[in-house]
């Protein structure tokens, strides 16, 4: 039994590594095949003033003239030694460029995720408890409307109202100039972007919780529990919630990279210095080395969280595991 367990862990690690490698090949090829000139990222507009010979020389120097495979092998070799090359645009080590910004994204996305995680569960529970009563209907209405508002427009709206008209909150950046360490200042800058991140996703997940619970509420065991004298609320918390939790956890595991990595629109509108804007710039201006690392960061997280979702639902709900052992393949979310 123990042997089987270790085998499974090794199998999962192998699967994970394989996927990450394939992903890196894919991103590498895609970014190289896309037309566009990485020299622009490096030299900016000056490229146009360079002679053809100079351009060729620059390409040679950056290692862009070698065959694709050689370039990839070289990159991989460096990557295993922790050397991811330099960013063409920022002219420094890619790791430094990312290290300077990743904290901001993690704060924004991480806080957003936590808020969504808690609020979606509470809202879903509340709505399921008050199914089809006034409160549920009103929340559903409002929720549907918020889920229809595109993130970027919500961000613009908040900017217009709270930063331009009322002038209550700052509209751009992660901190005021010269106040980098000031927590309160950072918190104030975080309010608007965080609101957009949370409102943009909240209802989708809350609605899923609600629907899942409504299915659960219609099961026979609820009838039994009620007959034994438990109140509706007790049944909902002790039994239905438990039934809905595995699918909620695996759903949120899939949601984690989605929310963390999906902040680029918000970051762009609020000029918030994070990974999202970096990804956008690097994809647009062919900053290959930077693009590779940013894509791998988000991609790895997606792969990891998807596998985590499978493992979580297998842990909590053994039925899923049996299903996957009997040849059902991947675990399906509900």
């Amino acid at each position, binding site marked *: 039994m123990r042997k089987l367990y270790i085998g499974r862990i090794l199998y999962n690690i192998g699967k994970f590594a394989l*996927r990450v490698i*394939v*992903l890196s090949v*894919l*991103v590498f090829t*895609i*970014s190289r*095949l*896309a*037309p*566009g000139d990485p020299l622009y990222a490096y030299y900016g507009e000056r490229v146009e003033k360079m002679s053809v010979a100079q351009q060729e020389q620059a390409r040679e120097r950056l290692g862009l003239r070698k065959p694709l495979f050689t370039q990839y092998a070289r990159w991989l070799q460096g990557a295993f030694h922790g050397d991811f090359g330099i960013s063409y645009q920022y002219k420094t080590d890619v790791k430094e460029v990312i290290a300077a910004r990743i904290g901001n994204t993690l704060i924004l996305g991480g806080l957003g995720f936590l808020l969504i995680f808690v609020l979606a569960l509470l809202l879903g529970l509340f709505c399921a408890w008050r*199914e089809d009563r006034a409160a549920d209907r009103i929340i559903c209405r409002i929720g*549907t*409307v918020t*889920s*229809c*508002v*595109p*993130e*970027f*427009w919500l961000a*613009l*709206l908040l*900017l*217009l109202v709270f930063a*331009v008209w009322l002038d209550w909150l700052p509209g751009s950046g992660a901190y005021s100039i010269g106040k980098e360490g000031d927590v309160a200042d950072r918190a104030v800058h975080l309010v608007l972007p965080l609101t957009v991140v949370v409102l943009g996703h909240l209802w989708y997940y809350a609605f899923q919780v609600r629907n899942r619970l409504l299915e659960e*509420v*219609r*099961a*026979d065991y*609820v*009838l039994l529990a*009620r007959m034994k004298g438990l109140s*509706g609320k007790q049944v909902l918390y002790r039994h239905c919630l438990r039934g809905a939790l595995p699918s909620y956890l695996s759903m949120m595991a899939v949601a984690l990279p989605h929310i963390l*990595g999906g902040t*680029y*629109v918000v970051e*762009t509108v609020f000029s918030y210095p994070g990974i999202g804007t970096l*990804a*956008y710039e690097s*994809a*647009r201006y062919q900053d290959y080395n930077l*693009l590779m690392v*940013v*894509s791998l960061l*988000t*991609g*790895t997280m*997606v*792969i990891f969280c*998807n596998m985590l979702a499978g493992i979580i639902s297998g842990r909590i709900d053994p039925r899923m595991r049996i299903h996957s052992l009997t*040849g*059902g*393949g*991947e675990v*399906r979310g509900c």
Partner: protein
Amino acid sequence: MTKDPLYMDLAHCNEAPGKEFLFGTDTMGRDIFSMIRYGGRISLTIGFLATLLSTILAVLAGSVSGCAPARIDGVLMGLTELFLSVPGLLLTVFLQAVFGGSDAYSLSVVIGLTGWMSMAKVVRAEVLQLKHTDYVLAAKCLGGGFFHVLFRHLAPNFFPSVLFMAVMNVRNAIVAESTLSFMGLGLPMEEVSWGSMLSLSESALLSHSWWIILIPGAFLVATLLCLTNLGNYMRGRANKRHSNLGCQGSLNIKKK
């Protein structure tokens, strides 16, 4: 009332809503009312075209992978997941570069090609449940080919959930179009759509011209809301039909 949506009336730049310009003019002097009228066509066209493409792809990929033996199914789903893990932004920029200039059609192809994965997963899940039913087995024994079984037996069963997802995909495609155009990756400013109108909003923020941001956005949100309601209506019908079977008992409890 309506004017040429492309005509830049330089004498009336940035004018607030009034009698002549019902919704005002944008920073380049174009009449927002007529831009919304004509731009809606492009936004909706992109929404429907992209959905058509992604739905076809999703149904094919999902049902092939659902019907295939477990090993091939695993590989196919692995590929789908891989597609999901490549950053969407990179994929969009790449596809756009491949399809050349950005007009409404190439943009819908790009959005369609990046939006089929989650729907394929749903189709696969449905097919997996359906493929072991007796009538599918019977159809196969009688010599029905893959496409026969797909269209006559599988598709009618997963149609409701695909329909719901397709409506939601129209919504997502419109959101994607407007977001991409807003970020400067989608339609250029000369091609009027609700999204490309909003790409002027950065400068509108500076000049406090709220109408450039609020009015096209309100139209966008209203359209999306309609689509969502349509989708929910379809799903609601499907749900009720299912739950009639064995859950009346607990419904009574809730009412008490």
